[in-house]
C-alpha cells in the first residue's frame, strides 16, 4: 500500500477545518491525522475538463491542501454536457479561471495553482516536481505517455482514468512496486489518418463516474488507507453498469519502469505516437476537398493571389483571434451563400480544420467550383506562420 510520507510535521487543523471536515474526522479511516495528511497534500490535475471537473471538485471538498491544474483550453458550450465545474456564463472563458472560481467557492482554504500551458516534454518534469500525486485526465495518447514517463522518472503516483463513449478505465500507475502505463500498453496505436476533430461522442455522466474514482484513489494514496488500484485495471461499462477488474503486471522489461530502463528522459511523444505536425503531412484531398497548408496559404497571399478566406467560427472566437477572413458562423452559411462569391477561390477556415472541412464539403455540394480547406486552421497558422495570432 503506498502511503505518502510527509517528512515535515503535519499542518494543524483550524476551527473551521474541524467543523467542515467533521464527517471525515469521525471516520476511523480518516481521523484527525488523515485530515491533516489531506491538508498537507499537493495533487496535480492534468485537464480541467470531463475527468478533471469531478476530480478537482471532490479533492477540494475532501480538504486537499494544494490543487494544481493544467489546462490551456477555453470553455465551450459543448463542454457543459459533462464538464460540470464550468457554467454557462463561463463560455469563452479560460477553463482554469472558471475552475478556480468554483473550487474556491466550495473551499476557500484551498490553494489553487493554475498552470496555463500545454504540457510538454519541456515543462512536465518541472511542473510535476512540486506535487505528490498526479491525476491524469487528458484526452490524447501522446500526453498519456508523457504523464506516465514523467511520473515514473520523478517517482510520483499517476492516478489514471480514461473514457470512451460509455466505457472507462481507471488504475494507479507509476508506484514503485506497481506497473506503469507502458506496462499495460507498451506501444501507442498508430494514428492512421490525419488527426481529426470528429468526436466519438461520450455519455456525459461517464467522466463523472471515472473522475470520482480517480479522486477516491488519490485520497486513499494520501491517507495510506484502503486498497488502491495498483496492479489493477478497473473497467467501467456505464451502459450495462458493469464493473470488472483485470490484473496488471509490472513488466520487468518495461523501458521506463523496468529493471533496466532505456527511457531515462522525456522524449518526443508526438513522434512516439507517429503523429506528424499537420502541415508536414503530404497535401491531401479529403472527401474531394483539397487541403491547403498554412504555409501554402501564406505563400499565395504574399504572391497577391485573390483568395476568399471564409472563417466559419463563432463571433467570440473571431474576437479572440482571426486572420482577416470573412466571418460567417458555420450554422449561418446555408442562409448566407449570397455573401460567398461563387467565382472566387474559397479557402474555408476554422480553429483546427474540422468545421471548415465540413463546410467546404457543403459548399462543394452547393456547386462551388473552387473550394479548399485550411488544414490545421488558425491554430496551425499561429503555430507555424504568425505566433502573434492568439491561440485558444
Amino acid at each position, binding site marked *: 500500500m503506498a502511503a505518502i510520507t510527509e517528512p515535515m510535521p503535519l499542518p494543524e487543523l483550524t476551527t473551521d477545518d474541524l467543523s467542515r471536515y467533521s464527517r471525515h474526522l469521525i471516520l476511523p479511516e480518516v481521523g484527525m491525522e488523515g485530515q491533516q495528511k489531506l491538508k498537507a497534500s499537493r495533487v496535480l490535475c492534468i485537464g480541467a*475538463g*470531463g*475527468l478533471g471537473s469531478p476530480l478537482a471538485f471532490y479533492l477540494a471538498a475532501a480538504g486537499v491542501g494544494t490543487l494544481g491544474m493544467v489546462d490551456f*483550453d477555453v470553455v*465551450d*458550450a*459543448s*463542454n457543459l454536457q459533462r464538464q460540470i465545474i464550468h457554467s454557462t456564463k463561463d463560455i469563452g472563458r479560460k477553463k482554469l479561471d472558471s475552475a478556480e472560481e468554483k473550487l474556491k467557492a466550495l473551499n476557500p482554504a484551498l490553494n489553487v495553482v493554475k498552470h496555463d500551458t500545454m504540457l510538454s516534454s519541456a515543462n512536465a518534469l518541472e511542473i510535476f516536481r512540486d506535487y505528490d500525486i498526479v491525476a491524469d485526465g*487528458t*484526452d*490524447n*495518447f501522446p500526453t*498519456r505517455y508523457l504523464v506516465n514517463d514523467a511520473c515514473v522518472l520523478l517517482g510520483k503516483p499517476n492516478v489514471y482514468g*480514461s*473514457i*470512451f*463513449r*460509455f*466505457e*472507462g*478505465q481507471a488504475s494507479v500507475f507509476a508506484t514503485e512496486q506497481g506497473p506503469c502505463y507502458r506496462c*499495460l*500498453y*507498451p*506501444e*501507442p*496505436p*498508430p*494514428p*492512421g*489518418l490525419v*488527426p*481529426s*476533430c*470528429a*468526436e*466519438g*461522442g*461520450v455519455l456525459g455522466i461517464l*467522466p463523472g463516474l471515472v473522475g470520482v474514482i480517480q479522486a477516491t484513489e488519490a485520497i486513499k494514496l494520501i491517507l495510506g488507507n484502503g486498497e488502491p488500484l495498483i496492479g489493477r*485495471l478497473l*473497467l467501467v461499462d456505464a451502459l*450495462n453498469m458493469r464493473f*470488472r*477488474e*483485470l*490484473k*496488471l*503486471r509490472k513488466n520487468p522489461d518495461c523501458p521506463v519502469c523496468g529493471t533496466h530502463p532505456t527511457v531515462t528522459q522525456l522524449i518526443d511523444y508526438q513522434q512516439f*505516437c507517429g*503523429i506528424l505536425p499537420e502541415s508536414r503531412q503530404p497535401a491531401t484531398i479529403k472527401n474531394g476537398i483539397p487541403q491547403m497548408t498554412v504555409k501554402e496559404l501564406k505563400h499565395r497571399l504574399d504572391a497577391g493571389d485573390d483568395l476568399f478566406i471564409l472563417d466559419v467560427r463563432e463571433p467570440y472566437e473571431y474576437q479572440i483571434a482571426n486572420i482577416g477572413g470573412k466571418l460567417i458562423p*458555420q*450554422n449561418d452559411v446555408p442562409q448566407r451563400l449570397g455573401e460567398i462569391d461563387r467565382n472566387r477561390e474559397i479557402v474555408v477556415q*476554422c*480553429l*483546427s480544420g*474540422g*468545421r471548415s*472541412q*465540413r463546410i467546404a464539403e457543403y459548399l462543394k455540394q452547393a456547386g462551388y467550383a473552387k473550394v479548399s480547406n485550411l488544414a490545421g486552421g488558425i491554430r496551425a497558422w499561429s503555430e507555424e506562420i504568425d505566433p502573434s495570432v492568439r491561440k485558444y
Partner: protein
Amino acid sequence: MIINIPTPLRAYTDGRNAVEVEAANVASALQALTASYPELQKHLFNGDGRVRAFVNLYLNDEDVRYLPAKDASPVNAQDTLSIIPSIAGGLPGLAVQAIAPSAQSLPVNQKR
C-alpha cells in the same frame, strides 16, 4: 467460451458485445472469432499474424502475455476472453482511428 468485444470493435461483430466460440485455447478462440467476423482480422492482428501491440487480451482477469503458455493457454467453456484496447477519451482515439470505422459525421461543434 465467451469473448468480450470492446466498444470500438462492435461495429465488426454486428453490434455484439460478446461472442460465443468453441475453442481449446486462446489462439484458436481468436481464430474462431475472426472466422465468424472476418473484418476483425486486420484490426486485431498485424501483417505477420501477431496480435497488435496496443490490444491487450485477458483470459478471465489475467493478461495473456504473462501466462506461462501465452496464447496457447487452454480454455474451457466457463472462461472469458476480453479484448482491451487502449483508450484515451476525448479525442477519438487514435486507437479508435486504427480500429474503428471512420467517423460517420462531424458534429456541429468541433471542440471537445
